Every structure is written in structure tokens, then in C-alpha cells.
């Protein structure tokens, strides 16, 4: 059809999405391309080579980067999951808890981590950890990540929840679902797009964090950003590009698998 008469769709939006995707992915093409660069610099092309992939597994820093990747992912997954759970509970209390005095302060507390500049939070957290005798290490990173991931998980969940009428819970409770069951069987699935969005945001925020991590991490515990930021001072080396490309491939593979799994499940 030449004219788009469907009220649901907007003609320019597909194009905009493609532009959006292009902007998002264009730098990654650079990353991928230069991961195969024989030269040391990302700005000069030295021919094709897999040396940086070899370097990732056997180079002098391979152990460090591998450990950093493990740390980063385990922290991101645990922190995003915990933060999403906490945020979901909080959103339920705030959107479905009626009106009460603690509502606004709670909302303020939840959004506090994004309002305080990271460096301040970093220094403050470090001072605070020290004053209460927390030893820095993996756990301190994890706890800090959980805390600052909460608002990123919270806001999409809250936004979604506000769009869900409470009639659905009422119907569920009318059918003998306890409040918990009504939540699990009705509200939770309906909130799913918000929860997934919140989780993904929390996940990438955790995966990307440098400043706070750099302050609160214990000696010798590295995450990918802290490992990578160090390398950059010497000029971004293609081995970082190779690691990034591998991460990208990993995520693409995971998404593809989950897509087909869900498809297969749907047609069952």
C-alpha cells in the first residue's frame, strides 16, 4: 500500500528505527573491523589478522582480561537481577500501595543514585565503606552496583506498571488468588516488558561502570571497564577490540538462541 492508513503505524518510524540502529551499530563495525587489524593502532589499517584474538587467550594480559570478564559478567548478572527484584518490589509498593507519607521520600531515595554525580558517590561510598570497616573486594563492588542499578531498573518498571489497570488483579483475587498469586500470575507477566527493560538497563549500566567500581574495588579485583580504561592510556589496542567483538558475538548468539527457543516454544 502506498498510503499508510493503519492508525497503529507511522510511516517514518521504521526509518527512524533504522537510523537509530545504524547509529548504535556503526561504531561497532569499527570495533569489529579493527579487531582484525594487524596493526597496533585503531586508526591505521595494517591488514587482516587474527593475532588479537590469539592475544586475548594467550597474550600477557589474557589472564587478567579473562578474570575481568568473569567478574564483570557475574557482577552485572547478580547486580541487575537483585536490583530488578528490589525495584519491582518498590514499584509495586509505590504504584499499588495507595497514598501514604513515605511514598514521595521513597521515590526520592530510589532515584538518588542517578542524581548524585558518580564521582561523588564513588568517593562517598569509599569513605563510608571504610568508616564501617568494609574490606574492599568483589563484594563491595557488587553491593555498590546493586545500589546504583536500582533506579535504572525501577523507572521502566514503574512506567509500565502505571499503565496496567488494577481491574486485572481484582479479577484474579476474585478468583481466589492471594495477593501474592495475583502478583505472580497476573501483574508480573503483564509487567514483563518493563521488568525486562529494567533488567537490561541495569545490566548494561553495571557492565559499563568505571568510576565507582574503580574506587570501591578491592586490590587486584578488576572488571572489564577498569581493565580496559587502563589500556586506553597507552592507546586503544586492538586486543580490546577483539574482546569487545567476542562479547558482541556472545550476546548475539545468546539473543539468537533465546529467540529461536521462544519461537519454538510458541509454535508448540
Amino acid at each position, binding site marked *: 500500500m502506498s498510503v499508510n492508513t493503519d492508525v497503529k503505524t507511522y510511516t517514518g518510524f521504521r526509518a527512524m528505527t533504522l537510523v537509530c540502529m545504524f547509529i548504535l551499530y556503526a561504531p561497532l563495525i569499527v570495533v569489529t573491523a579493527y579487531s582484525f587489524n594487524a596493526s597496533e593502532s585503531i586508526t591505521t589499517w595494517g591488514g587482516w589478522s587474527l593475532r588479537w584474538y590469539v592475544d586475548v587467550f594467550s597474550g600477557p594480559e589474557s589472564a587478567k582480561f579473562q578474570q575481568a570478564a568473569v567478574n564483570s559478567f557475574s557482577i552485572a548478572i547478580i547486580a541487575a537481577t537483585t536490583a530488578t527484584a528490589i525495584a519491582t518490589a518498590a514499584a509495586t509498593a509505590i504504584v499499588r500501595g495507595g497514598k501514604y507519607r513515605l511514598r514521595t521520600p521513597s521515590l526520592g531515595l530510589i532515584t538518588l543514585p542517578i542524581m548524585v554525580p558518580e564521582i561523588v558517590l564513588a568517593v562517598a561510598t569509599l569513605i563510608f565503606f571504610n568508616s564501617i570497616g568494609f574490606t574492599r573486594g568483589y563484594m563491595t563492588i557488587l553491593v555498590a552496583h546493586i545500589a546504583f542499578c536500582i533506579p535504572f531498573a525501577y523507572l521502566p518498571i514503574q512506567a509500565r506498571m502505571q499503565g496496567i489497570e488494577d481491574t486485572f488483579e481484582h479479577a484474579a483475587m476474585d478468583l481466589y488468588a492471594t495477593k501474592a498469586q495475583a502478583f505472580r500470575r497476573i501483574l508480573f507477566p503483564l509487567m514483563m*516488558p518493563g521488568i525486562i527493560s529494567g533488567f*537490561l538497563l541495569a545490566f548494561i549500566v553495571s557492565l559499563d561502570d568505571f568510576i565507582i567500581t574503580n574506587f570501591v574495588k578491592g586490590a587486584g579485583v578488576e572488571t572489564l571497564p577498569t581493565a580496559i580504561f587502563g589500556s586506553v592510556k597507552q592507546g586503544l589496542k586492538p586486543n580490546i577490540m577483539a574482546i569487545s567483538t567476542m562479547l558482541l558475538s556472545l550476546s548475539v548468539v545468546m539473543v539468537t538462541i533465546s529467540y529461536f527457543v521462544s519461537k519454538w516454544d510458541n509454535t508448540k
Partner: protein
Amino acid sequence: MAGGAASGGSAASDTYKEARHWLLMPSWLVLGFFVFAPVCVMVIYSFLTKEFRGGVIWEPTLAAYDQFFFDRGLFGDSDPTLQWTYIEIFWRSIWQAGLATIMSLLIGFPTAYFIATRPDGTRALWVFLITIPYWVNLLIRTVSMKFLLRDEGPMNDALLNIGLIGEPLQIINTNLAVQLGLFYSYLPFMVLPIYASIERYNFTMSEAAADLYATKFTTLRRIVLPAVKPGVIAGCILVFVPSLGAFLAPDLLGGAKNFMIGSLIEEQFKGNAGNWPFGAAASMILLSMVLVLLLIFAQQQRRAGAAT
């Protein structure tokens, strides 16, 4: 579509009234302990005397705030006048963050909308597609972006080759580059919350609007946007607020020629200056500003919503 047009799904819903304190408990504990308490430390620090090269001396003073608001000249002994430097830095940051937010909204909203109107099975795929690039570290993405945008970079080459431009576009080290960088850093923070809202939108509402002669654009503005406002607000907060304090994109893409709030504050802790109370004070001023903005906004929301 199941359910009537508008049955009770109001914000004042209280299904989980009894459990609300329990549900909030984890966030109170985690945030109270690991964010609120440290922030309190900073509030206190902002009223303490700076120790040379970082740290504080436990003597209360308003020096940090004085430094923020009063200009005493290069040598600190002129008559105090209103300090414009920091106000300008704040204003610049707000301006940049604001433009970045608008840009994200202009591109992010259509993207979110488009994704939300995909068939059931493919929506999740699109959502992942939006976040996959963020598995690559921000620094690397930003450096790569910089590489793309360079005067002699691939983008200019391509545009020159197809003859769209005659001279390379000078983007790097401009404000546009900063906005682009911020936009690129935070795009999913705009797209995902909006997507989550639109996904639940009842499209019969759009049909009703179209039926009443609203053009598609008007429908978008008068019907869809108000209905998915919570998502838009969430997205704007998630882009605007972190953009305010961002420093990587401004530094790498914008050339760092002018301080942004983020770099200014960072400098107080990690730079030569080592003036913690001032860094804390600037943060608290930023924090109160954002809080006030949000409160004004929330107030307006409430007023708009309470019209009976």
C-alpha cells in the same frame, strides 16, 4: 481488547497497601545504607574545611558554598562579586543534557513505538538489538564513535564520496559532538522505558482519535503521548540526569575545552585541585537542582491529574 476503556487503573490503586512497607524494605536498606548514608557524608563534607590536596578538616565552614557563589578574583582577595563561572558551567551542562535528551526523545520515541508495534514474537528481539551495543564498553564505543566522526573519518569520506558535501563536516570537538555522544551513551535509557509503556497502550484509543478526524500526528501528540507519559518521563529522567554529570562523551568527543558539571566535580576529587568540600558542595547544589526540577514536575503532574 479486553476491558473497558478506562476502568479504575488509576495511580491511587492500593492493591498492595498492606505489603507496601515490606516491599519497600529492601530498597530502603540497600539504598539507605549504600547511597543515602554516603550522600549524608558528602553533605557533611560540603560544610567542612578543605584539606589541601584532598580530604577534609573537621571544622565547619561555608567556604565551599562561598567559593561557588562569590568571585573573589584570581588571587582571592578582590571584593566578592557574583560568581558566574560555575553558573555558566551548570547552565552549559543543563543545555547540553537537555539537547541530548531531546535528541534521544526524537529518535528514541519512534524507535520504541516501532518496536512496541512489532508482532508478539519479535518484540523481545528488537529490545535486545537495542541493548547489544552496550555490551561493549562505553569508552570503546565513544572512541570508535570519535573515529567515525573524525574530519578524515569514514563518515566524512562516505559523504564526500557520494557528493553530499564538498568539505568534511567538522563535528568532532563541537557541541553537536557532545550531544551526539550523550545521545549515544544513553539512547536505550530512553527507548526501553517508553517501549515498556507503549507496549501496554490500548490502540483502540488511536482508532477513536483517527475516527474523530485527528491526524496521525495529532493522535500521537494528544492521545498516545499522554497515555504513555510515564514511560516518556522515565526515559527523559534516565537520559537527562546522567547526562548532566557525564564527562566521558564531553571529554572525548567535545574536546573537553569547557568544563561540564561532571568534569568540574571530578576534578575536585581526582584532579590537582583536591578540594573535596567544594566538590561535595557543587554536587549538593546539582542534586538539589535536579530534585527541585523533579519536584516542580511532579507537582505539575499532580495538578494536571487532579482536575475534577
